[in-house]
Every structure is written in structure tokens, then in C-alpha cells.
């Protein structure tokens, strides 16, 4: 079965949609685009008119939020619970103060010195949220950043929406390297190249895994990094210090049941450092961890990179790839 691929840019990152039914690609693309437009206007941290920006500006008083923002907020609070606070949506101000205060394409690669203060962030437990009434109360001074789980949630929602319109077969959606799948996979599974940077071309050298279902996500300190006053900073904040993490792993990839779960685990592993090995093992999640010196560790049922399973790839008769980035 030939699969069809369409790629474009949205939310400041790359979007890839793969369908097993070539004729359904156009419908899937429209469904994914619609979800991403809603996500952008609802919880982009960089849009002055987004609902999240309004919520952050309303800290100190209760606010009613839309179903989509409530879903994203609930996902981020679940991430915090499951990771014992290693992933925490209340790092918003810390991310901004570290210099990540605009769409990343506009961040100066080497900016002047800034003063960074270590301070324990307010923490997710200070957020009052009622999922039924969708009322939120942020303590004064707290800013939410739903970036990590928010992007993965967008991938999951987009894959579900696209699967709803393709009628037959399956869909894979990659949003900046966070990958969600829905429906029946192609024979052998969905092909995913594991890399440190999601901009690496999919035909590059490296391990390609085949996943039958679920989600895959990679968190890395090697991307979205910048320099202020000679110090290298990056976008993954340790909630315990409010500063970019300093730990043994530069990149972690996890396969889980959804993109959100994979993202939670990958980001938590970067923050947890050494402790991530036990934590991932307990959860039984296949994971690939890259040490700062490049040494790679595999956890759980991560497939052996040298044990290539013969793949029932069809002859290249219909494999249409459109606009591959």
C-alpha cells in the first residue's frame, strides 16, 4: 500500500500528514489545518490576541475558558501530576525571562547578557481549575506555557480529526517532530526517523522505527537554543530552578500511546536526568536517550537499531510525496 505525504509550515514549525489512502490526503490536510488554526488562536503564547494570552493577563481573577483551552490546560496539569512536577505549565514567566519571549524564529541567536535568577516557580498545584465549569484561577504573577504538551495535544487532535474524514485506512500527523497516529497503519507500521532535530530530512542516515499505533515524541536541548552574554540557554526549563535544565541527556525520544504521553515522558526525562532511567523503565515506555557526549542509551522494548525487520514496501508505483520539506 502506497502512502501519501503532504508537508507545510504552521505554528512556527513543520507539519507532515501521511495517509494510507492517497485519495484522502486532501481531506486530511484540511482537517489538520482546521485544528491547527484553532490551536493557534486558542493557546499560542506569542499571539497577543490568543485566549491563553488573555488568561495569563487575567492572573488573580477567575476566568471561564473555551473547551479547547480547558482540554489543553487539563493535559498540561495531567503532565505535571504524572511527572511529579518535572513538566509544569507554570514555567511561562521563566521561559520568557530566559530570553524566549517571541516566536523562536525572531529570537536573536547571540543576544546581550541578561540576569538570570534561580527561583522556584509557583508550581502547577497553585492553578485552580474546574474541568466541568471550565473556570480557571491563576495566582497573581503566574503565567502558563502550554508549549510542550500543547503541541503534542495538537498533533493528537489533528490525527483524530483527520482520521474522521479519511473514511478508510489511517493517518499519521507530525507537528514539529511530535507524532500522532490514528486508524489502520500501513503494512509494517508508520515509518519514523529518529533524530535530534525534527528538521533532519526523513531520508537521512539514522534509525527508522515502525510504529503500529500510538505516538512518538522527542525533546532536545540541542534545538531552540540561544546565547545571552556568552551563556548557551535552551527552552526546557527545570521547574525546581526556573532555569534551563542542566542534566546528562541532550535528547530523549519516547514511544507511547499518544503524542501527548510520549511528549510528557520525553520532556520529563530531560528534566529528571539520571532518575529518568528508572522512571521510564517503571512506565514500560520504549525510550532512546542521548547523553551530552553523544552516547545513546535504549530503554525497555526500544527496537535494536541493527535488527532491521524486512518491510513489505510496495514497488514505487503510487507513492506520491507532495511538497516534502
Amino acid at each position, binding site marked *: 500500500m502506497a502512502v501519501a505525504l503532504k508537508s507545510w509550515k504552521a505554528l512556527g514549525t513543520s507539519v507532515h500528514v501521511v495517509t494510507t489512502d492517497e485519495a484522502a490526503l486532501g481531506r486530511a490536510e484540511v482537517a489538520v489545518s482546521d485544528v491547527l488554526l484553532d490551536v493557534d488562536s486558542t493557546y499560542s503564547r506569542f499571539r497577543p490576541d490568543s485566549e491563553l494570552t488573555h488568561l495569563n493577563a487575567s492572573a488573580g481573577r477567575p476566568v471561564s475558558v473555551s473547551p479547547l483551552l480547558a482540554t489543553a490546560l487539563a493535559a498540561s496539569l495531567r503532565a505535571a501530576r504524572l511527572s511529579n512536577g518535572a513538566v509544569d505549565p507554570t514555567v511561562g514567566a521563566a521561559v520568557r525571562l530566559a530570553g524566549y519571549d517571541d516566536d523562536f524564529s525572531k529570537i536573536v541567536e547571540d543576544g546581550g547578557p541578561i540576569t538570570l535568577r534561580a527561583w522556584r516557580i509557583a508550581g502547577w498545584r497553585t492553578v485552580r481549575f474546574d474541568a466541568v465549569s471550565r473556570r480557571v484561577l491563576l495566582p497573581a504573577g503566574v503565567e502558563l506555557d502550554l508549549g510542550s504538551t500543547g503541541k503534542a495535544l495538537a498533533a493528537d487532535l489533528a490525527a483524530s480529526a483527520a*482520521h474522521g474524514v479519511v473514511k478508510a485506512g489511517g493517518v499519521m500527523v507530525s507537528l514539529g517532530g511530535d507524532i500522532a497516529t490514528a486508524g489502520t497503519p500501513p503494512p509494517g507500521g508508520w515509518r519514523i526517523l529518529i533524530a535530534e532535530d525534527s528538521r533532519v530530512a526523513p531520508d537521512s542516515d539514522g534509525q527508522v522505527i515502525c510504529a503500529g499505533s500510538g505516538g512518538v515524541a522527542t525533546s532536545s536541548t540541542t534545538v531552540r537554543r540561544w546565547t545571552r552574554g556568552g551563556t548557551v540557554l535552551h527552552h526546557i526549563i527545570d521547574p525546581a530552578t526556573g532555569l534551563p535544565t542542566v542534566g546528562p541527556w541532550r535528547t530523549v525520544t519516547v514511544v507511547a500511546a499518544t503524542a501527548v*504521553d510520549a511528549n510528557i515522558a520525553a520532556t520529563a526525562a530531560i528534566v529528571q536526568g539520571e532518575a529518568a532511567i528508572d522512571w521510564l523503565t517503571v512506565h514500560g515506555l520504549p525510550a532512546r536517550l542521548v547523553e551530552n557526549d553523544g552516547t545513546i542509551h535504549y530503554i525497555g522494548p526500544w527496537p535494536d537499531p541493527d535488527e532491521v525487520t524486512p518491510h513489505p514496501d510496495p514497488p514505487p508505483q503510487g507513492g506520491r510525496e507532495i511538497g516534502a520539506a
Partner: protein
Amino acid sequence: MSEADVAVVGAGLAGLVAARELRAAGASVAVLGVSYVAAASYAGTSSSASSTALNSSSSTGTDSSSTTSASPSATASSDSLPSSTAAPTTAGNGSGTVTSGGS
């Protein structure tokens, strides 16, 4: 054909969200449109969000729909991070490969 209190016409985000709200309010809801699966998945996302565990994708066997669709609902409602239904394998490059990396 089953009966429902409310029929939501259109399975776009607005329809799915409306269905989720109505269900939360106790109504039985039928979403009319092509996105039956999307409706189920989207509705489940909210409950997943409030669950307290991470799931890897292979251990979610309680939800039969997860074997093929791995919808967010499968994970969402669990108290852990379930793994996906089948352990991944290593393959060669081929058509439709996408990259997972940091971004």
C-alpha cells in the same frame, strides 16, 4: 440505530466540543457527520487530561478501539502512561517516513 437525547450535526471541532459538553452535562449524544472516530477521540481527550497516569501504548488493552486507532481516549483515561499496542520495530527508509526530533 441507537437513540440519543441530542444529535450534533457536524463533526468539526465545534461539533465535537459541543458533544463533549453535552455528555459532561449528562446527555446521550449522537454526532452526525463523517468524524465518528474523531468524536470519540476528542471527547476522550478531556477525560484523559484529568487522569493521573502515563500509559505506554501496548498495555491499554481495555480499550479495544485502541488496537487500531490508539485514540487519545485510550491514554487519557488511564492512570499511567500506557505504551502503544505493539512494540516498535526497526525498518529501512521508505515512502512516507517522517522525522521525530526536537523542535
